[in-house]
């Protein structure tokens, strides 16, 4: 559920002579920020190395350039009068220029470090092969252009999923053992299948057989001019991918939350409160929801940053023009800057969230002490 990414806070502070809370918090903050930063640096460097395949991508790009440029020079009618020797020389020069433009003239190791420092400063640079719909090669623009689509799809489905499963789980934990409870338990193994799998079935049923919803894409072509029609078309296209994302994990999500709440509602203090005759609503709010709040917040925060990565396969299956599909395309085109760009933003978001969560815990849970 929470995939356990809570910070462990294992940087055990040395027994400080001063008991000042401020000092403790300050020291903790600095140490934590430093370790998180080192983690990001290593993570990004690994991604860069993998995305460059230790230099093999260079070879692919070099031979690609050679082929294209040579074909261009040889077939250009303007070069007709030249001898083969001159043409070859011209091609060589153009290849050199092209390689320099792509930065292929510096060794991989140095380039990797240059990438790393740029990436850490969020200078994402220019894409090698990809371009945004408006024709720009800036990685920032490519990502920004795809972000709304991903946020729309992932945001709508994950928010519905999160709150629906939380609400349903709470009501099931009240009526535990009932028919609906048993039904959810029986259905929870269906969450073993990933969203795209349900997506295929949904396309089969609603697009292919009943022809009521579109196969894929984000709006119908050509996009309607009218704003209302545009929204309707957008919603129509959103239904299938969003519901496959929801269906694929709603039952396991309800089941997990329900079990989690049940464990908390069998604690002694809850029994005590029941014995005292407190209202069920009060018990729920004070004795069940409050102690579970840190877990709920963690889960919510991780869900929020999870939105960023998009759903690679669901987006690919539904031809949804989001970030997930973009990063898949980027990998196919060996476009290292775009790959690294999406990774670095995710890494930063994750690190910031993990960092902030420590403080949020301290706010909502009196048992937790920052750096303690």
């Amino acid at each position, binding site marked *: 559920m*929470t*995939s*356990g*990414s*809570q910070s*462990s806070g*294992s940087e055990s502070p040395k027994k400080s002579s001063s008991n000042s809370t401020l000092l403790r918090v300050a020291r903790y903050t600095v140490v934590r920020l430093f*370790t*998180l930063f*080192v*983690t*990001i640096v*290593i*993570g990004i460097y*690994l*991604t860069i190395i*993998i*995305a460059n*395949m230790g230099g*093999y*991508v260079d070879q692919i790009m070099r031979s690609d350039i050679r082929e294209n440029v040579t074909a261009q020079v040889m077939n250009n009618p303007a070069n007709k009068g030249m001898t083969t020797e001159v043409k070859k020389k011209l091609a060589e020069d153009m290849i050199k220029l092209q390689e320099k433009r792509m930065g292929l003239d510096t060794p991989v190791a140095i380039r990797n470090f240059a990438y790393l420092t740029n990436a850490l400063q969020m200078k994402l640079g220019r894409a090698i092969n990809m371009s945004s719909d408006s024709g720009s090669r800036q990685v920032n623009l490519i990502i920004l252009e795809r972000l709304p689509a991903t946020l729309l799809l992932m945001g709508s489905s994950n928010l519905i999923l999160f709150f629906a499963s939380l609400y349903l789980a709470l009501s099931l934990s009240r009526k*535990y053992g009932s028919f609906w409870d048993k039904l959810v*338990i*029986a259905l*929870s*193994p*269906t*969450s*073993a*299948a*990933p969203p*795209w*799998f349900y997506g*295929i*079935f949904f*396309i*089969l049923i609603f*697009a*292919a057989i009943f022809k009521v919803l579109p*196969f894929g894409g984000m709006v119908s072509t050509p996009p309607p001019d009218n704003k209302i029609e545009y929204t309707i078309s957008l919603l129509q296209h959103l239904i299938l991918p969003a519901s496959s994302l929801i269906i694929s994990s709603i039952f396991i999500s309800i089941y997990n939350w329900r*079990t989690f709440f*049940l*464990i908390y509602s069998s604690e002694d203090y809850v029994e005590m409160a029941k014995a005292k005759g407190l209202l069920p609503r009060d018990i729920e709010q004070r004795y069940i929801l409050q102690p579970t709040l840190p877990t709920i917040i963690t889960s919510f925060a991780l869900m929020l940053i999870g939105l960023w*990565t998009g759903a*690679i*396969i669901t987006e*690919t*299956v539904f031809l949804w023009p989001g970030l997930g599909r973009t*990063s*898949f395309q980027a*990998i*196919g085109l*060996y476009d290292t800057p775009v*790959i690294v760009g*999406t*990774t670095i933003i*995710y*890494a930063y978001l*994750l*690190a910031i969230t993990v960092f902030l969560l420590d403080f949020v815990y301290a706010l909502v849970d009196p048992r937790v002490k920052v750096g303690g």
Partner: protein
Amino acid sequence: MNSIKNAFREMMRYPSAVLGVIVILLLVVLAAYAMITIPYSEAIRLWRGGEDVWYQNPRFAPPAWTNLFTAKKLPESFAVKSANSGMTKVVTPGTKGTSSIEITYNFDFSYDEFPQELLLYFTSTFKQKQPFVSIYLMTPDQRKVRISDFGVSPKQTFRFSQDEKLKRRLGGGEIIPALFAKPDSDPLIPLKGKYQLILNVVTFEESADLDAEFVFHGLVYGLAGTDMSRRDLMLPLLWGAPIALAFGLLASLGTSVLTMIIAAAGAWYAGWVDELIQRITEVNIILPFLNILIMVGTFYSRSIWLILGVTILLSIFTGQIKSYRAIFMQVKESTYIEAARAYGASSQRIVFLYLIPRMIPLLIPGLVSSIPAFVFLEATLAVLGLGDPVLPTWGKIINDAWSNGALYKGMYYWILEPAVLLMFTGLGFAMLGFALDRIFNPRLRGM
């Protein structure tokens, strides 16, 4: 021993666990059947063979049993050879070393659609003068349609639909419908009844001979249907089972056992070992799992073994290792460990014989429930076009179907068959895993 028996008895109380076990057993039987009846090398040959292996099958044909559920019956495919007396072959010697061979084949055609294609594959032996063949088709209403006649080279293929002269004789339309249609029907309606294919062959040499294979490409084929390159889908459906099971089991076993050992070692040795494991885990959580797998598949190799290795490597250092570590930290303080330390047990002994066995009840449910995720992971990569290029898998079928627009063109069988098998596998392991989790996890008992 007793505890295993108890656990088993407890398991039998959960209907979902029983169902899960049955599904898993069926899959194991299917996998064993596939591996025994079609050896690996044969499977690869049938899957990657080329047109020589698949020529007998029609393209894009749904399975034959779909006819049971439709009002319109689609023609079934078949192939017969004169060499092994699938067709009647009569040789009558003539004068001067010539002989005439008559090859006939009767077949029933009582379907509501026209077949895809009819083919004749000739193999002939001669020294100098080619045998001469005349092909006729006898229709149920006793018309004898002349198809074609020509001299046959040692190996020759004749496609009915490609013969231009025949096309002109039949009025210029599509050949196959014209051959099988009721005369003067518009739109063309198939004429049902007994058809006869007649090959009249004349050979001009003493030892000359000719054999023919008649291949009838219908619109349905076999138990599973075919794909875009005429491959019988039965093969990947059967062979997908052992591959999916092997990938799922190995990945999940490798991941959970290694996670456990590393977590135990970290908890026991503490200090820099523990610190290192924690840091690696934090780095790994930042790395986008699927992106890295896709990169490895695109850049390095699509071999299923490499993907398996990378999957295990990336799945070890996740949140799981942290929760195992927390439990080991508790176990480490228990008295039996203290006793072991007192009698001088080595660290290795404590980790492998005292710490890890304590956790096996926790390991088993997690192991079983993570199998579906890995089975689907393999299918996921295949759907993205990153499946192992050699192996026939369920994900590969879905990928082929997807890229050929199976859903747009109504070829639902193509996607549904592997999808149903995947779903079964996923559900089987997930149901068993859930039940095991409730049995072995005392906090969940009775919930």
